[in-house]
Every structure is written in C-alpha cells, then in structure tokens.
C-alpha cells in the first residue's frame, strides 16, 4: 500500500480509480453492463409506474366520497365549543378551508357533504377534498421514497429497492386508507420510517427527533421507541445522546397531549380516546379498572423483554424489532381499519427476505379489509355513499350488512384470524434464520459487491 509522508494510508480515491479502470478489462465487464442496463430499465419502468400510481391516487383522493372524520374536521369550526377546531389537524383544516375560499371557484355549503345524493360531489368540493388530503399524499410519496432509499442501502445492486417501494406505493390497502379514507395515520408512519432510515444511517439523534414528531401527531410510534433507543445504545452512542433522544420522545408525547388537549377537554372523550388507550382489550371483560391488563401494552413490553432475554440480536435490528413490537401491539389493539397501515412498510421489507411471511402479509391485509368493511358498515360515509362507491341503501347492501350472521359469527372469526395471523408473523420473524432486515446495511453492501 502506498503511504503519504506521515506514514498513513493515502486517500482511497486514486486507488479506487485505478481499480475501476482495471475492472473495465475484466471478463465481468459484460455482465456488469447487463446489470446496469437492467437496473436502468427497471428505474424507467419504476418511474413510469410511480407517475401512473400517483395520478390514480390523486384522482381517488378527489372523487372518493368523504369519510366521516374528513367531514367532521372540515366542519369542526362550525360546532360550538369544538376543541378539535383548535388542535393541529383542526387548524390545518381551517387553513385549507380559508385557502379554498380564496380560489375563484364556486363555494357550495359544506352541508353538501351530508345532503348530496349524487355519487360524485361538485367539482369545487372535490378540489377541497384534494387540498385536505394533499399532506397525506405527500406523506405517502415520502414513505415510498424512504423505502426506496432503505432498499438501496440494503440491496444496492438489485431491483429490490423498486419492489420495496412499490410494495408500499402500489399497495391497494394503503391507497384505500390514505387517499380514499383520508386517515392521518400515514403521517406518523412516514415519521417512523424516516426515523428508521436515519437510524440505519447512524444519525440517531435525528432519528429520535423524527420519531418524536411522529408521537406528537399520534401516540402509536412510541411502540418503536425502545428499538430506536436500544439501537442507538449498541451503536456506541453516548448516554447523554440516548438521554436526549428519550427526552425528545417525551417532548413529542407532551406535544401530543397538548394538541389533543388531553385530558381536560371534550376531545379526550371523542377521537383521542382510542389513540391514547394502548389497547383497551382487557383480559377479563369490557369494563376498565386497574385490575385489568391492557393486552396490547402487555404484548409490546413482553415482546421487547423476550427479545432482550432470548434473542438479543433482534434488538440490534431496529426495523425488525419495530415491526415485531408493532405486530404484537396491533394483535390486541381495538381494531380500526386504518391501524393496519402502521405495519405495511416494515412488513413489506420483511417479505423481501423472509418469503414465508408473504402469504401472512396478504392474509392480514385481506382479513383486515374484510373486517373493516363489516365493522364500518361497508365504509359508509355521511352522505350514504360508501368509500367503495356503492349506495348503502341498495337492497343487496342492506341484506348483506344487516345480517346477524356477520355480527355473531363472521366478525369475531375475522378478528380472531387477524390476531392469529399477526402472532404467526411474529413467530416467523422470531424463528427466521435469515436476517430479514440487516442491521448494518454498509456491511451488507460490501458483501454484495
């Protein structure tokens, strides 16, 4: 090795240049070119697909009948003493509404959301819906980009980054929940993914800040916090840094509590309740007393403790551990169709390595969608039209959704199946010999090259 005047190794660049020059004449040259060409074609196809999917998403966001929460937030300011008009999401909706009023188009009454008998709303209201859902679409794109970046770090010379990105962006479940339903869950999911990307890039403090931002929006990213902190610790971060990270998370929690006006507001009793309660399923019944055990919280804590006790190597992989804990959390959380969104990006990554989980991934999405369909009365909106563009009052819908068989038999079975699939997925992640989500992407990169 050539050395400089101080005896140290010279900068690697000239040496790498020499190496790359010599590589040109190696017999692998043709193969490398073929790989590059394939990647180039893959990239073009990927970009085309992204644009097409984005167009579909934008259209769906505009034309889908607005869900109850979307209408509620848009009209929140008209309710007397509504605390939701003052919180973060309420303020955004108010601002969007003001912006909409500035646009030189018709401005029909918001009551049209409730009274419209047509499947499609007037164009101006569709513009309003699109404006409201723009941040969600932005978060959607951000997640796709993060997944691509993570994929590039993990599998640089393959098409897997594109697949990983499409597993999210082309996922019909994610599109339904985000663009059609208008659930805000995609924003904290984006923060979680950004946090994990930063963690993998060894930017632990920024990762913790991102997670804290996610917690400030909605509580559930706190489930991933131990994974983030622990990975920071084993990466050799100083205790002060870890403490700062934890403090950031606490700040996020405080912000969440403040903007949701917990606990001294009506908001606490309405939409925030389900967010605050980490799984209200108790072991013993429905009533809530201190003697009941919150199964969702129990499962999260026991997941981390079991990993710490028996599979410490899992804790070295924040993506796997976060997915593991989120699956346990969701398995026993009170069911909402949008909650399944939380695991889709990480589960998508796991599928690329652990093939056995693909069938479970599909089964979870199908079961959750079916269960959500029956739980949310066929995804009925305030106007009577459902998110799936059929009228709730049609004869077949009335017969299907009013059946006692659904309430007494089908829904409990589907809920049980959903939990079973999630627990099975956890088991597969636990027992998998493959490293589903490598801890050190740089090491993996070198191995591939």
């Amino acid at each position, binding site marked *: 090795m050539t050395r400089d005047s101080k005896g140290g190794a010279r900068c690697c660049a000239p040496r790498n240049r020499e190496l790359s020059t010599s590589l040109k004449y190696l017999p692998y040259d043709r193969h490398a070119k073929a790989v590059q060409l394939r990647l180039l074609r893959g990239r073009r196809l990927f970009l085309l697909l992204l644009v097409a999917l984005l167009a579909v998403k934008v259209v769906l966001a505009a034309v889908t009948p607005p869900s109850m929460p979307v209408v509620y937030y848009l009209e929140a300011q008209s309710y007397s003493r509504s605390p939701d008009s003052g919180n973060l999401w309420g303020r955004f909706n108010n601002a969007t509404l003001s912006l909409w009023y500035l646009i030189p188009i018709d401005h029909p009454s918001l009551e049209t959301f409730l009274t419209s008998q047509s499947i499609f709303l007037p164009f101006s209201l569709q513009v309003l819906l699109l404006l409201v859902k723009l941040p969600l679409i932005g978060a959607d794109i951000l997640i796709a980009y993060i997944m691509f970046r993570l994929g590039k770090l993990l599998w640089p010379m393959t098409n897997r980054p594109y697949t990983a990105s499409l597993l999210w962006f082309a996922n019909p479940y994610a599109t339904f929940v985000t663009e059609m339903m208008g659930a805000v869950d995609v924003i904290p999911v984006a923060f979680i993914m950004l946090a994990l990307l930063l963690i993998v890039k060894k930017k632990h403090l920024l990762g913790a800040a991102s997670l804290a931002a996610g917690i400030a929006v909605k509580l559930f990213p706190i489930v991933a916090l131990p994974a983030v902190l622990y990975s920071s610790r084993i990466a050799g971060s100083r205790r002060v840094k870890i403490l700062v990270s934890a403090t950031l998370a606490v700040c996020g929690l405080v912000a969440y509590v403040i903007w949701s006006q917990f*606990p*001294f507001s009506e908001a*606490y009793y309405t939409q925030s*309740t389900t967010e*605050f*309660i*980490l*799984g*209200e399923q*108790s*072991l*013993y*019944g429905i009533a*809530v*007393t*201190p*003697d*009941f*055990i*919150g*199964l*969702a*919280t*129990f*499962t*999260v*804590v*026991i997941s981390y*403790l*079991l990993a*710490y*006790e028996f599979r410490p190597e899992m804790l070295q992989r924040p993506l796997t551990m976060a997915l593991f804990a989120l699956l346990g959390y969701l398995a026993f959380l009170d069911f909402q169709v949008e909650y399944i969104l939380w695991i889709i990006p990480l589960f998508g990554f796991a599928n690329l390595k652990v093939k056995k989980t693909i069938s479970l991934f599909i089964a979870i999405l199908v079961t959750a969608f079916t269960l959500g369909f029956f739980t949310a009365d066929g995804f009925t909106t305030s106007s009577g039209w459902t998110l799936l563009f059929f009228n709730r009052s049609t004869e077949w819908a009335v017969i299907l959704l009013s059946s006692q068989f659904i309430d007494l038999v089908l829904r409990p079975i589907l809920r049980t199946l959903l939990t079973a699939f999630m627990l099975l997925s956890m088991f597969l992640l636990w027992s998998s010999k493959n490293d589903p989500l490598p801890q050190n992407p740089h090491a993996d990169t070198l191995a591939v090259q």
Partner: protein
Amino acid sequence: MTIKLALPKSLDPRLILVFGVGMLVRMIYAVYAPLSGDWRAWYMIGIVNVYNQPSPIFGIYTAPPYIFAAFYALWLRLPISHPDPASIVTFPTWGVPPYFQPTPAALIFVLMMKLPALISDAVIAVLIYKMLGDSGASRNRICFAVSAWLLNPLTLVLVNLNNVDSIPLMFVVFSAFLTERRKYGLASFSLIAAGLMRLLAFIALPFLIVKTARARDWRGLLSTTVPIAVVFIPIITWLTLVRPDALALFQGRPGLYVPEALDVFGSALRLQGIEYPENAITLTTLAYVIVLAMITDPSKDSRLGLVAAPFLVYTAFSWVWHTMLVYGIALGLIQIARGKGYKTLTVMLTIAGFLWILVQVGYYICLDQASFLFIPLYNSTLKQLSNQCVNLYGLLFSSGFSVQIRGVFSALIVILIIRLISGTAPKQGRDLAYDASQLTYSPTDKAY
C-alpha cells in the same frame, strides 16, 4: 473471653450505609404516614381484644394482634407519658403539620406499634443479602438489590401503607431462603406461619410438595408435609369446628384471600361472555398450574422459583389489591438481581408499580382523609388542587391508563417467571461447594 465486634470482612461498607439510611427513612415515614385500615384493625384487635381482654389463643384473630399486644405492653413499660392510644389512632386527619401536632409520646407510641413491621423489613433486607450472597452474586448486585428493597419508594410506600404485610412477607422470604438451602421442612413451617397471617402464603406449599415428589426426594417430601399435618391441619380444623367466627375474621373478608390468590372469582378470560360461565377460564389458576408443572420439572433446579413463582403468578394475573403487590416485588427483586439488565428492570418495575398504585388507590390521594404522599386534602388553600386530583384520577381511571400500567407491570413480572422457569438463575454458592465441575464459575457480573 473476648467478643469480636468487628463486621465480617466480606461485608460491603455501602451496605451498612444503605441499611442505615433505608431504615431511618422508613422509621420517619412510618411515624408520619397515615394509618391504614388493616393496621388499625390488627392493632385494635391486638390491644383491645388480646391485651385488655385476654382471650384464648386464636379466639379472635391470628398471630399479628398478639405481636401488637406484645409491643403495646412494652410501650406501657417505657418511662414516658402514655396518652390514650384511641385518641391517636382514630385521629381523623393524621398527616403532616398543621393537621397533626405530634407529641413525643404519641410519636413513640406509633413507632412502637409499627416496630414489628420495621423489624420485618430489616430482616427481609438481610435475607436478600444472604440469598444473593449464597448464589455468588457480585457485591454491586447485592448492594443494588438491598438498595432496591430499602431505598425504593415503591416498597417504602407499599410496606408502610399497610404496615402489616411485611410480617408475613418476612416469613415468605425466609421460606425462599430455606428452600434454596434445601431445608424444606423449615421452609414449610415458615410458609405456614406466614399463611396464618395471610392465607395467600399457602399457595407456595403445593410447589414444594410437587417438587420433592417429582424429584423422588422422599425425605424432602416428608419434611414438607409434616408441618402441614402437625400445624396447619389441626389449627384449621379446630378453628372450623370450634370457632367458625374466628375463621371468618381470620379470613378478613370471607372467602377472599385464597380464592383471590387462585383467582376463581374475577380474573376470568371469558370466551363466550358472562352468560356462559363454564366457558370462562380463570387465568391465574391456569397460569398457576402451568408454572407449577414447568418449574417442578426434575431436570430444572430453580429452588427460588418454588416459592417465588406462585407469588409472581398471583401478582401478574390476579385481582390484586395494591398492598399485596409487595409479595411479588420482594421476591421479584431477588430474581431480577440474578439476571441481566437488573438495574433497568428494577427501575421499570418500580415506576410501573408506583404508577399502578397511584392509579389504583388514587382515592387515597384525592378522597381519603390523608394521602400516603402527604397531600393535605382538607387544607382550604389546596382544596382546588385536590379537586383537580379528583378530576385527574377520574380521567386516568376511566381512560384505561391504569389498564396499560397494569399491562406493563404484568409483562415485567411474566419475564421474571419465564426466567425462573428457564432456570437462568445461577448455581447457588452452596451447590458449588459440592460440585467440583463448577471450578470455572466466577462470581462476577459476567457470569450472569
């Protein structure tokens, strides 16, 4: 003949400091903390029914009142003024000044009456030290575990909130200590002594019996069952036949403690709803049987688990009243100190336990005449604060926050049970002396 007053060379000076500070804090807290209902009941029965009106043994109640009576007699013999105890104990707003202006005599009286519990506390600390020392734990671990018992705000509050449970708890921990030394007979006696104060303690007896039977340790089996035959069965039979009223009092609330321990009543996983009780599964009983089967496996050698596991199962899953938490925590601290991550786990257990009792007994903070956190509720200037406490407590209670705290707490306890079952506890020092193959064993932190 000379008497050596020097401390053992192996004794860590930090332990002496921890012990001194811990006991001092406990004494101060014990004197000033509000008097719990159980303490008042045991004390009143002890003084009124045992000391002033001597009655036949077990005529009214079991052992604790007699202990109280003995200390009451001791107090009477002290050369100080003796105010009427009833005026002290029934003082309505016991707490910090200005609600209570304690005289020295009153303080000494309360201290004397709480001395049995304080002594038990100290003995438990010594037993933790001995048990961890026997198992070859490092000085740091021993010191941390003893601190986790004596300086822990959770145990401070739990023990002093009731002031009676530390006495049976001392016998339970002593039983675990003896079990680790394979002295099953004495361990059984100790459990029976504890059980005569709290029926809960009997839940560990089947573990000792099944373990010795499955290990074909016939001598151990005989040692375990003899105390049951000689002490337990005659007393219970006599009480049942002759003094059923005493038995009812002995149980406190009829039928509560043992069923509570095995959780026949409330803690059921209802598979089909309450209208089909035959489909309900009592989780604690289920967990109890499974843990019993696993921990008494002859291939496992978790002797601490024989006593600790049933109490941990009870703490994790049962309908647990806050004062009973201490049974699981005392034994849990020993097991935590033997495993990895002991500091983190201890802190987590403390925080979860403290939050739980804050939520569960929130009315102690908000509604009762005095709070164990010394919040003077009848102070007019703080009335608004206390009202806010009531509101906050109501919100936390109804929100399910308490449910989640219980979830965290139970998960921590369950991991300890798993550790006990999986036999991750280190070999005991006493065993090492017998086992020449353990020469590589090093009693350092890395050994765990």
